């Protein structure tokens, strides 16, 4: 038998995220580990280097509002049609977090470089932007095969931890993500990966050709925790939708720190109720 991934409780899972860790998280709706995010806030995480792959909304805003984040690297933080991200905007304006603005394909390319163990990657575009002007950790190099052709070089993005939520794990700890392949890339790219799932099923997804095509093998995973409705109040495709009412209230109320605290309480209360 091959070694299985370690199954853990939510609390055990977030204990594997030390203060100061760099963490990659997916787009709202693509499998955000929100229950784990609340557990991380409960344990009082500090100094996180949050990397959104490539953008975020509620998850980033909660972690920033709760004081867990020292720096964020992001192509965008927004609640989309609901409005702006209140704690993100406030923290950036007040300078209480470091923001590294980036662009979506840069994040994907850097994750792929890390996935391959390559030191850096290159990308078209970006030249002449103020993104590049503000990223001393990026470089401009020559295309070795076309003299005078400049490309932007980007370092591999190997986070300490990738954190996300998925529909299901099997008994060996393989995790099914379907066509959400960016989660696979995140898992390959990070040093280790922590996943929450809606349910744990018997058997092995790798024995089923259809499921195998959308599966992250256990070897990439540091821990798997069961968390029913673990993305709520965000949605999980094919399982449940987003909680419209909550997000509407949040973008309004979280403009103030007091309002944010009330909204966080509301989530924590719901999480406690769900756990009982």
């Amino acid at each position, binding site marked *: 038998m091959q070694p299985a991934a370690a199954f853990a409780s939510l609390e055990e899972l977030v204990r594997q995220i030390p203060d100061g860790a760099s963490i990659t998280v997916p787009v709202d709706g693509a499998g955000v580990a929100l229950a784990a995010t609340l557990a991380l806030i409960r344990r009082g995480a500090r100094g996180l280097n949050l990397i959104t792959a490539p953008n975020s909304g509620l998850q980033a805003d909660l972690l920033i509002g709760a004081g867990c984040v020292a720096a964020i690297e992001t192509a965008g933080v927004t609640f989309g049609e609901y409005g702006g991200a209140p704690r993100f905007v406030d923290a950036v304006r007040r300078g209480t977090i470091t923001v590294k603005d980036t662009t979506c394909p840069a994040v994907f390319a850097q994750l792929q470089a890390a996935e391959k163990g390559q030191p850096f990657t290159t990308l078209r575009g970006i030249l002449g932007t103020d*993104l590049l002007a503000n990223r001393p950790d990026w470089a401009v190099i020559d295309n070795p095969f076309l003299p005078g052709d400049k490309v932007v070089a980007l370092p591999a993005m190997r986070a300490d931890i990738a954190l996300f939520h998925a529909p299901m794990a099997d008994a060996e700890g393989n995790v099914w993500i379907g066509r959400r392949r960016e989660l696979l890339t995140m898992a390959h790219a990070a040093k280790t990966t922590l996943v929450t799932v809606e349910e744990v099923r018997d058997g092995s997804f790798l024995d089923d050709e259809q499921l195998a095509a959308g599966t992250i093998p256990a070897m990439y995973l540091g821990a798997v925790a069961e968390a029913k409705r673990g993305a709520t109040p965000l949605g999980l495709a094919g399982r449940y939708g987003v909680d419209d009412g909550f997000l509407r209230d949040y973008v309004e109320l979280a403009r103030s720190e007091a309002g944010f605290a009330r909204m966080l309480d509301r989530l924590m209360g719901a999480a406690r109720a769900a756990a009982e």
Partner: protein
Amino acid sequence: MSDIAYTTKELLISVIAPLLAGCRHVACGASSPIPGSAALLTRMRSHGQMRVTVLGSQKNNFFTNGNGELFDVAGTGRLDTFFLGGGQIDGQANINLVGAGGTYPRNDVRWPGSFGSAYLYFVVPKVILFREEHTRRVFVPKVDFISAPGVSEPGIYRPGGPRHLVTNLALFDFDPARVRFVLKSVHPGHSVEEVLDNTGFDFDRPDVVPETPAPDAATLAALRGTIRREIAETYPRFAETAFAA
């Protein structure tokens, strides 16, 4: 011209749709119901020749390689048209999705971020700038932060760039050789003076600026039938309110 009453959103869809004619593949980003509707309308008229990707849709999103596939599709020349907006847009078609006022990163106003603009603006042949609000707050002489530049120096790989700008007031083309917008038409009920008053940068215009044609009966029927149903999958509230009954 049509005598049928129509909503502003129906007009904007009918303005954008002809700009997409002949495209093989049009994609619309998140929170883009008007471009999405225009793309679906043009697809309907293409007799099966045009592909539409509506991000956030299940039915009209064929990607199976994760979120990054949009950028790979664009980078390999498989995407003809994309839509971008901006908190600020200037007369050289530079766009700013990051923030205004103060000093970056501590801008007075902070927007979500640049998303894919810094790449797509370079590689998608026909980028359509779309911003409903037409004010001097948006259309500034010079953006405070360049998320993506309107043009690039010679020698920089740039098969793509801005070609059109659509607002609540008017339709512009962008001339990359002259690095200037050209006013093409002003929407019914608005005037060239109104456009001038609300635009913070210089642009070219013909002596006589045409009025944007109102959507015809066939277009409105398509919008209120097939397109309303198709866009409702991704934007249900938009589908309820954007179209006249």
